[in-house]
């Protein structure tokens, strides 16, 4: 399903942002808020994994039912390294990447798993050869 991806601050993400390796931050920044009807259409239940894909790549997140519905066709994810692993660095000459309203594809991801921060960094930055 094609969606617009909007990244946001949330109380939980903000409150844990100085504790990047804590479970709370992981929880707050790996949830994908989906509109209830979109969830039904996708055949995904709250707590199940979804895969979000952009031209930059894919990331597995946990789907949650949005408390701020209706917003069909729009998904919300808190700022953080998970969602940034699929955001584009293109700024259109403004210095600012499109962190709200970018196009993405969402699909169910049965058997998927949300990566921990260390694993994610390892996967994303391995090419750079900095992590042992």
């Amino acid at each position, binding site marked *: 399903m094609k969606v*617009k991806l*909007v*990244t*946001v*601050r*949330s*109380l939980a993400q*903000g*409150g*844990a942002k*100085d*504790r*990047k*390796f*804590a479970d709370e931050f992981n929880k707050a920044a790996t949830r994908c808020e989906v509109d209830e009807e979109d969830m039904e259409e996708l055949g995904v239940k709250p707590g199940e994994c979804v895969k979000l894909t952009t031209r*930059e*790549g894919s990331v597995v997140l946990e789907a949650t039912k*949005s408390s*701020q*519905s209706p*917003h069909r066709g*729009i998904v*919300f994810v808190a*700022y*953080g*390294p998970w969602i*940034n*692993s*699929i*955001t*584009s*660095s*293109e*700024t*259109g*000459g*403004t*210095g*600012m*990447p*499109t*962190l*709200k*309203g970018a196009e993405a594809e969402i699909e169910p991801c049965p058997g998927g798993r949300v990566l921990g*921060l*260390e694993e994610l*960094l390892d996967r*994303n*930055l391995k*090419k*750079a*050869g*900095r*992590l*042992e």
Partner: protein
Amino acid sequence: MSEERTVRDVACPFCGCCCDDLEVTVANDRIVRVRNACALGRSKFESALEGRVPNPRRNFGNAVEVRFSEAVELSAKILSEARYPLLWGWSCTTSEAQRVGVELAEEVGGVIDSTTSTCHGPGILAVHDVGESSCTLGEVRHRADLVVYWGCNPVHAHPRHMQRYTVLSEGRFRKRRKDRRMVVVDVRRTATARMADEFIQIEPNGDYEALTAIRMCIRGEELEQENVAGVPSGRFEELADEMMSCEFGAMFFGLGLTMSEGKSRNVDAALSLVRELNERTKFVIIPMRGHFNVTGANEVLAWQTGYPFAVDFSQGYPRYNPGETTAVDIAKRGDCDAALVVASDPISNFPIGAARHLASIPLVAIDPHETATTKVANVVFPSAIVGIEAGGTVYRMDGVPIELKKVIEPPKGSFRDEEILSAILKAVRALRRR
């Protein structure tokens, strides 16, 4: 020695509201209680000791703890050997430290950019073009009878904004909630939207259109389309009337404008709308700045170099060309060959392409806490938490300077950003003289 003491009028080092009415109770140099803060501010004080960087360390293959002086030497070497170093972060530190940062950027011929470029930078570009009609938050509190939150969610990002400065505050001329109207424009029904008298839910990337529609109504032009940005046009006509008929209107905008398609142009439309409203009534516009001293980073850079962010010293004089000299663009192009990061986590916060390049070059990080950036940095300095373990000056979102307090001692081995940066600057100068 377990006597409790309470420090009053403490300013909160979290968001751009810089609430300066906190009361922090300390016993045995530990924080035991924080009063008046919101959940974000409180958790910052209460979890201050969690996840700290223990000691300075170097990491070239394997991480080893080093003495402070060795970390300084290494950092100076990395920065002075680089052809085009990037000095990034700056919005969670004091203006005193920012000032040293500018000096260091000039000395090493690098680029200094703050998190501005990935938050309200596009808004600043719009201010260059249009100008802005602004005032202090105090004035909004006392006078505003119409408050519009556009593309921002203060309940989650600036939790005390409404209570201290707008609809829930008790002002001199507006005493109660019912003395003010509150309008929210957003792409979803946020917690903030639920508190509003009126909520307009627009489509993502529909801000420019919506703002333009209101501007047309104010000029007396007719909206021909039935819907604008997914909303029946009549709603914008009503909002335009409401805006023109208030006595003192205040619009607050967030990253909903700056991060969506259109970026600086969206803010351009909002600033223009407010300018035009001033022909009919009194209206102001203020950005909801996120980090507690991101405004200070703009102030300090502007008065030291003439430009508010993304300042490039590689030619020996300050140059400013957002889109080219902004951090994400520099990293994406692979231009910077070393970086210094102060109180920020670009490895987490940058889009993958830019983060990957940063992780591949020599990196120096100064931070109280372990982050994705400190994990991949070659040199890491633990620092005192600004506003808790170190005092200094910060600028609130409306440009009012506020004094942060030191309420407890930093852990042994953690220094103030300003001290660390001054030591690196001194070492860079010594290397140059050689």
